[in-house]
């Protein structure tokens, strides 16, 4: 397939183009997504011109009804995308997404699946505490919705196309710190990246680092640094958090016998806590150290650049050294 170097934002945009070309049931709703803006993160650039304002609608500022209308569109046979500008604003959609979309298949005994795709973006501390939360754990804890979070342009496109064809509702999370900084070759054509398949992005024998999203770059940096002290870390990018590829995780940890989970979400009751628990339950007696976790400290996201509660390369390196020594 012909490839082009793209940012993650461009890869997502390419994904939308491919998807909407292939399936005219796909419609996109969100604030400022139509031209001339094409979305505040530019991920829907060109779509309304190409596919018309009926399929790509800029909406009033009303997240609950953006999500709810998506649920209705799904029940009406469409494949809606509800773009929620910042992850924090999903608080306004949870009745529709978690009480309705995620449960509609179950509550109807299979008759009314509601395969919406909700896309959203994690902000940075520049915006303050109401624009920077990582809330994937809430969704993973609530049965009935896929959760994906790409760390690079190829997966960003492939996972989007997967969500848009999944029979189930999906939460698609992008990170504003990655959208323009990560570039890479991306096939121009339609392709999908499977749900529930992690990618081993670095091999190593001493410890497994399980991560996703912004944690991937961080962990790869930490791994490079760790080679200095003779530690070879394997790094797994989960890509999809629900379903989660425990098979790949267990297989790796069985070899390395040590593991640390890294994510930007709050560490306390974050995705790492489930992963850690399951590793202990499944590999009892085979570990050389307890599973470590490096997530956000238990605070809101502070604004000042002098403070950060997020994982850093240093924290990952330190945690690995603590476990491997």
């Amino acid at each position, binding site marked *: 397939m012909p490839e082009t170097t793209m940012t993650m934002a461009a890869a997502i945009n390419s994904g939308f183009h491919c998807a909407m070309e292939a399936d005219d049931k796909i419609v996109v709703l969100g604030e400022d997504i139509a031209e001339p803006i094409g979305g505040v993160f530019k991920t829907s650039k060109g779509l309304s011109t190409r596919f018309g304002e009926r399929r790509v609608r800029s909406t009033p500022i009303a997240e609950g009804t953006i999500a709810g209308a998506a649920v209705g*569109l799904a029940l009406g046979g469409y494949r809606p995308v509800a773009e929620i500008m910042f992850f924090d604003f999903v608080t306004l959609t949870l009745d529709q997404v978690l009480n309705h979309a995620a449960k509609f298949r179950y509550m109807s005994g299979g008759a009314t699946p509601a395969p919406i795709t909700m896309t959203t973006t994690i902000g940075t501390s520049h915006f303050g505490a109401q624009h920077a939360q990582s809330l994937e754990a809430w969704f993973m804890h609530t049965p009935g919705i896929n959760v994906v979070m790409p760390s690079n342009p190829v997966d960003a496109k492939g996972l989007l196309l997967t969500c848009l064809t999944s029979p189930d509702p999906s939460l698609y999370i992008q990170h504003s710190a990655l959208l323009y900084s990560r570039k890479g070759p991306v096939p121009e054509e339609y392709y999908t990246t499977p749900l529930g398949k992690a990618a081993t992005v670095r091999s190593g024998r001493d410890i497994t680092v399980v991560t996703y999203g912004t944690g991937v770059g961080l962990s790869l940096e930490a791994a490079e640094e760790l080679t200095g002290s003779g530690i070879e870390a394997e790094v797994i990018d989960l890509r999809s958090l629900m379903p989660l590829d425990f098979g790949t995780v267990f297989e790796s940890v069985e070899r390395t016998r040590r593991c640390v989970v890294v994510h930007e979400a709050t560490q306390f009751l974050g995705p790492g806590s489930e992963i850690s628990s399951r590793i202990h339950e499944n590999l009892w007696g085979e570990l050389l150290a307890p599973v470590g976790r490096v997530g956000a400290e238990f605070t809101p996201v502070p604004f000042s650049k002098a403070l950060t509660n997020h994982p850093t390369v240093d924290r990952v390196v330190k945690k690995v050294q603590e476990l491997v020594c």
Partner: protein
Amino acid sequence: MSTQTPGPSHEALKRMYRLMLTTAVADQKSSAEAKAGRLAAAFYPVRGMEAVCAALGEVLRSEDRMVSTYRNLGDALAKGVPLRSIMAELYGRVDGTSRGKGGPMHLQDQSVGFTATTGVVGSGMPIAVGLAMAAQLDGGGSATVVTFGDGATSIGAYHESMNFAALWNLPVVFVCQNNQWGEHTPIAQYAPSTELAQRAASYNMPTVKVDGFDPLACLAALQSAVDRARRDEGPTFLEFVHYRLTGHTGTADYSYVPKEELAKAMERDPAPTFRKWLLEQSIFSEPEVEAIESEVRTYVEDAFSYAESCPFPAPEELYTDVFADPTFVRSLSDA
């Protein structure tokens, strides 16, 4: 009772009476079963709404989609959901509308356009907005109807949905069932203005206040709103004013409801009032009416016995329908 030209046909009046009575009888039996502890489910009676439901039944076709609430028995019957499936769901049986997994607040029947019901006040409205968008994208010709109570007009979802519908001129009919109570609180205590149709007019869509105890008035109002939607001319808000003739749930105390108010409303109890009118107008003879009544009673009895005879869902059903593919869910379980 209002009349109009041309009035509904003889057959239509018969269907309407049958539906009103079926609703009332099935409702009363459900409440009785819940009170007796034989029906272990939250049941929300629909007594008082029979006229509106009968009109919905007469006006809507299968391709029109409806979104309803927990107070859904009359809506489901109006849309043509078999009472057997409804009752089997109430009893948690696998032959219920939702395989027993949803329960009374989550009836559905895609074959007749009874698309979804929700237990969360107001949440059906955004969903109806989306369904109406789908209908519009499909090329129009059908109506989406969403039912909700007077109390639901307080919640944000109502506002957002009315706004979306007006903005995009969506083929949706907002059917507000004003029974004058939001759970246990009377409308005058929670609303700065009790004129709901008048308030809704601020959304730049036609709004009509209708006597919800009058089946023919209901029919006329619904017909024109639904026709408007089918012609893709945009949304309508209809306020049907009636009264809740029972407690909030099948088992709830309602001694707080003012005695005279309730008695006055009871005088307009839709099914008996319509019966009287049908006889007075010599539309039907007493034996004809009685024939309908005995037919209805048999239909309802049959549905209850059917429901109680149906099997429960098998244990494995716990894990299915979470996702299309049950593999991952199954893999998480110890069982």
